[in-house]
């Protein structure tokens, strides 16, 4: 035991903690602190703090990976959209709703700004831990040199020959280690989603010709189902063997869905603005030629996405199609 905790005396001296750049969370906050001999990872709840100590002599590696920042563009777009809505609401004398929208825009902006764009892992001989406070590249860029300097003060730096030897060994290990396998995805959800897009297109085109309440309701239900299925498909296809083109088609469909909603709103506001007091309910806006034109473009684009998605799925299944396993019969 004495051998295992040889570094305990180093940590017991009264030490002052120094803050490492970067933190995460709003109510539950994570931060990193440096002291003589160890790095302290702190998770602060409103009424308590929990600590994890990583001794500089034990730290083996730090791996920083830049992550694609997928969420923040949508967040910024949502914030912008909410701001526009807030201005429109305040202008149309709904200040309470306008204020709510402003708060929501602010929240969307803050969430987007704080969304993670990198992951930092610290490895010791017993565990590999994520450092949640280093979730922004800027923070990681400031913090990692600090940590590196402190660790190298204790351990020294790795010599070139050791790295070279590691290179040989690692190559051998890499050859021995099989690549992580991708999860199989049948793509049933994708088939249904793309097919429903076409169904939705048909229903919408019919409701454009004939103003009918049941058609409108059916189109709305199918539209919601399409959105849910696209989200489900996007979740299912992560780390799967599905063709890249199909995966992209799903993302395009989702992006297009959001863009369509946004543009529809902007067009409606614009028409209402231009008509001024002439607006007598939503029917006036929907009957407007500009809105009809937008609907038509929207319909064509959606049908295109659906058709392309179905074709890509067909191509994908055709390339994947393998003969069924041979049946082992007893009669031999």
């Amino acid at each position: 035991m004495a051998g295992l905790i040889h570094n305990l005396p180093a940590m017991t001296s009264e030490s002052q903690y120094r803050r490492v750049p970067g933190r995460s969370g709003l109510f539950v906050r994570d931060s990193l602190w440096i002291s003589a001999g160890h790095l302290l990872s702190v998770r602060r709840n409103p009424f308590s703090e929990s600590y994890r100590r990583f001794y500089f002599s034990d730290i083996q590696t730090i791996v920083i990976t830049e992550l694609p920042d997928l969420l923040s563009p949508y967040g910024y777009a949502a914030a912008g959209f909410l701001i526009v809505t807030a201005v429109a609401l305040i202008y149309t004398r709904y200040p309470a709703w306008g204020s709510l929208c402003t708060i929501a825009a602010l929240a969307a902006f803050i969430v987007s700004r704080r969304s993670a764009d990198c992951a930092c892992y610290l490895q010791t001989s017993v565990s590999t831990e994520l450092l949640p406070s280093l979730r922004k590249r800027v923070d990681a860029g400031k913090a990692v040199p600090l940590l590196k300097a402190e660790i190298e003060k204790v351990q020294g730096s790795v010599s070139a020959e050791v790295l070279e030897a590691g290179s040989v060994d690692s190559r051998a290990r890499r050859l021995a280690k099989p690549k992580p396998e991708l999860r199989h995805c049948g793509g049933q959800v994708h088939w249904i989603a793309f097919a429903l897009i076409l169904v939705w297109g048909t229903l919408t085109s019919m409701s454009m010709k004939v103003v009918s309440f049941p058609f409108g309701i059916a189109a709305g239900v199918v539209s919601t189902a399409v959105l849910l299925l696209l989200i489900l498909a996007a979740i299912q296809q992560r780390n799967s063997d599905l063709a890249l083109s199909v995966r992209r088609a799903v993302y395009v469909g989702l992006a297009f869905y959001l863009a369509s909603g946004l543009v529809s709103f902007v067009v409606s506001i614009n028409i209402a603005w231009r008509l001024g007091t002439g607006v007598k309910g939503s029917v006036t806006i929907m009957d407007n030629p500009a809105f009809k034109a937008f609907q038509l473009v929207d319909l064509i684009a959606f049908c295109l996405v659906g058709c392309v998605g179905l074709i890509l799925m067909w191509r994908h299944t055709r390339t994947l199609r393998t003969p069924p396993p041979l049946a082992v019969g007893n009669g031999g």
Partner: protein
Amino acid sequence: MPFAPEYLGCSSCNAPIPAGDWNREHAFCAACRAPIQALVFPAFFLKPGTATSGTPVLEAGDASCFYHPLKRAIVPCDHCGRFLCGLCQVEFLGQNWCPRCIQASSEKGQLTHLGRSRTLYDNLALMLAIVPVVLVFTTVITAPITLYMVARYWRAPSSILPRTKIRFYIAALLATIQIGAWIWLVLFIIYRR
């Protein structure tokens, strides 16, 4: 230096990072093409240390370990005086400890550097002073409780990070104001009659 490097994987896809990319400023994962930076330190190449298991008692007159009677004692615990073998001896704070003394001191909060969590009583007191103000009448109960908490936990160990007692001061001030307001209200009602 014994050489036994471990597997080092990308944080995004867990694919192995080639050693050629270790300690490089800019590198890319071969599998997911994510930009990575893998910093490797000498501890990565070290074999984990092995603990001493203690030597067995050989002669009849040898002192044995309190926890392992068949092992020879090498040192007494500086706190409880029990004899300890090589397995049980813990060097800590420049002294020899037995595992039980470490555990007991840690549970009593005497070994601050081994603590894994702390309750932030100052935050609790501050919340107790602020939140009930919304309901007004609950402050009759919460204000004295806040003052009690401030007095009770003033010297209690707080965060191990740099932290002032400003929250305690504010909580005490707010609680005093609330109690004062209630006293004033009661007196006002009495004297008005």
